[in-house]
């Protein structure tokens, strides 16, 4: 079965700083998803990457997929307190309707 490892597990940054979260898969990555979760709440969809080398951005958040390394990274530029939360990566098996396997999450705190 596929395992996703996220690093770091937690991160505290000063407001305005940039940061990167990594997600490494034990198997080939097909669809890679990034979600944000506030403690005790639902998962908010951020973006999905499907092709090697693909890069997507939403506001100040950019995600990349490195198929060869079986890895994805999430980069936040000029972090704000509103970016605080738990970031989860998830992976499917390449087909519509597939289950998602999730990583353990990265807890981000942004100090004002």
């Amino acid at each position: 079965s596929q395992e996703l490892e996220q690093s770091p597990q937690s991160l505290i940054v000063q407001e305005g700083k940039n940061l990167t979260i990594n997600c490494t898969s034990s198997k080939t990555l097909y669809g890679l998803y990034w979600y944000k979760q506030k403690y005790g709440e639902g998962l908010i969809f951020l973006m999905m990457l499907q092709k090697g080398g693909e890069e997507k951005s939403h506001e100040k958040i950019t995600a990349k997929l490195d198929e060869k390394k079986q890895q994805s990274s999430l980069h936040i530029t000029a972090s704000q307190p509103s970016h605080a939360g738990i970031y989860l990566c998830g992976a499917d098996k390449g087909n519509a309707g597939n289950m998602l396997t999730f990583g353990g999450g990265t807890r981000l705190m942004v100090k004002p």
Partner: protein
Amino acid sequence: EPEVTQTPSHQVTQMGQEVILRCVPISNHLYFYWYRQILGQKVEFLVSFYNNEISEKSEIFDDQFSVERPDGSNFTLKIRSTKLEDSAMYFCASSGDRTYEQYFGPGTRLTVT
């Protein structure tokens, strides 16, 4: 903006009781899912549902669990005889036919006492 909704937000039940968790997926979506997250642990897949049947299920989804789409809008997860270890946040999700993105509901926190 369309969203997945779930009811109730919090359910407390006694061990051995049956519970039904309800979800209204995004209206034009065709794939429906249930996941759960035990406090402090990873989000885990339970089951996926397409074209009125289960398309995939995990080892967690044993005979105590069932899913149903009783009408054109609701999607339910039933746990027949709850156990203490069923205490978790249960998330419903849905996705469309042409895009793979899965959109999650806010979750139902199930507490089994």
